[in-house]
């Protein structure tokens, strides 16, 4: 059984109207929980399979159908975000977003969309369209199926922050059309341009935020050694002196049990996660060598931490994945932070952004709000 395609794709024969709405609702952009919420908002029954729900919603005659669908679409947590500071803007009226619910729409900004539970935020949506060919993964039939992918970039404007949110996805490699060869959707080729067009629409001035300073200076210094919080170094990608480092923790520690609950599967309390293990191994090697000279290493854990900080901050980090929990183990932030160190590359390193863990219970907006609550204009803006 093929996994669900992680973006909205449709057959060109799909007619506009309720059939298109149902196709849209059936896509990855709406999970069952979101569909149930839409049904509740519209006063419809929430029972049945996903296909029953999508049919019931798409063919209901509620006057606020589009508004309810769009509000739930934007409020669903996204897997990635980037942000800038904007000022001097005026809220524009872009294309009517209801168009996207019942028809293909076109490549432009749609909005505003206002959320009842986010009265100070305004959302916009920009679709992009791609022709996509696919060989069936199950039957491997020779004939190719052709679809259009409509990928959505969501913009959220609140106060001085403009953030873009999106879902990354993978698809069959369009060069080889081999079902087993997957390619990542190159969002890095599109997001920076989205900032430009929306900033123009807002007639705003925008300023880059130094994500590396916000994460590696402010957040790290405030929380990493703070006993009231739990900090996890999950992945470091760095480059210095011609050496490329890519150290990541293995996936053990937390895993999905068969019943869907998350449980800790760490069997041995002395087991250590990947990057800490790397630091301890290096420290142990030095410690043993020093003992050969009759010199004991004082405070080994301080040396472990010095090695980790060197890897994280002093080796030219390109990206850093961290998880921060409060004392009760509740997640506050869990993201892979790309610092935009290769601005003209054709890779995720092209611009600063965050990739949130899709296992996180905390939404992208909640995590971004947490991060931006530490923003300091004097420290984190790209200046002279």
């Amino acid at each position: 059984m093929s996994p669900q395609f992680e973006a909205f794709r449709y057959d060109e024969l799909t007619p506009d109207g309720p059939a298109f709405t149902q196709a849209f609702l059936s896509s990855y952009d709406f999970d069952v929980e979101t569909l149930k919420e839409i049904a509740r908002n519209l006063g419809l029954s929430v029972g049945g399979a996903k296909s029953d729900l999508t049919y019931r919603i798409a063919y209901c005659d509620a006057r606020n159908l589009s508004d309810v669908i769009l509000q739930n679409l934007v409020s669903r947590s996204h897997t990635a975000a980037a942000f800038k500071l904007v000022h001097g803007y005026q809220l524009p009226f872009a294309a009517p977003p209801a168009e996207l619910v019942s028809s293909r729409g076109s490549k432009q900004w749609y909005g505003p969309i206002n959320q009842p539970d986010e009265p100070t935020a305004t959302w916009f949506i920009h679709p992009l369209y791609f022709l996509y060919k696919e060989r069936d993964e199950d039957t491997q039939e020779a004939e190719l199926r052709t679809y259009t992918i409509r990928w959505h970039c969501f913009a959220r404007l609140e106060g001085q922050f403009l953030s873009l949110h999106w879902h990354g996805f993978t698809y069959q490699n369009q060069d080889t059309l081999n079902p087993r060869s997957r390619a990542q959707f190159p969002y890095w080729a599109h997001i920076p341009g989205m900032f430009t067009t929306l900033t123009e629409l807002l007639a705003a001035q925008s300023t880059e935020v130094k994500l590396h300073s916000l994460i590696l200076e402010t957040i790290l210094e405030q929380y990493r050694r703070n006993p009231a919080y739990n900090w996890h170094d999950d992945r470091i990608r760095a480059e210095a002196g011609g050496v490329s480092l890519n150290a990541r923790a293995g996936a053990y520690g937390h895993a999905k049990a068969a019943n869907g609950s998350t449980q800790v599967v760490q069997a041995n309390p002395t087991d250590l996660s990947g990057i800490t293990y790397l630091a301890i191994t290096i420290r142990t090697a030095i410690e043993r060598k020093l003992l050969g000279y009759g010199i004991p290493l004082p405070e080994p854990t301080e040396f472990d931490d010095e090695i980790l900080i060197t890897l994280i901050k002093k080796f030219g980090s390109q990206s850093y994945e961290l998880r921060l929990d409060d004392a009760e183990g509740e997640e506050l932030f869990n993201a892979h932070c790309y610092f935009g160190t290769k601005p003209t590359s054709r890779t995720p390193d092209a611009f600063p952004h965050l990739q949130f863990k899709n296992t996180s219970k905390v939404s992208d907006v909640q995590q971004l709000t947490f991060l931006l609550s530490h923003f300091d204009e004097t420290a984190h803006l790209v200046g002279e």
Partner: protein
Amino acid sequence: MTAIDLHGRIPYFSDAAHLAALNDVVGLHTRLAPNVLMMSTGCSFKQAMRILWLLFELEFAEGFLLLYLRDDPDVFIDRRSLIEGLPDFPLQYNYGANSVESADDILYSFEFVRAVSVEFLDSHG
């Protein structure tokens, strides 16, 4: 140890903590790149380049141009002295096993190899 007074010309490093972080990372590495300074001190690319260019200008460091593939930029494929300028294309790399046809497929960065121990000061800080 050679002292370099910034005289407040890069205000970011007039801050004592930023200056200490700069001296820490410059002491740690002999091969310095803008991203190494940025991540260690929180400065911007432009501020990092001004520091590195100062080392080059004072002849405390040699400057190199690093060439990366835009599609796979984890490790540079060529490193050439800044004095040599930009490469000609097609450019062979990996001991001639691969080649790049056009500058469109390349992105550039810089590396400065420190030749002496330095300490940055800021008498205006």
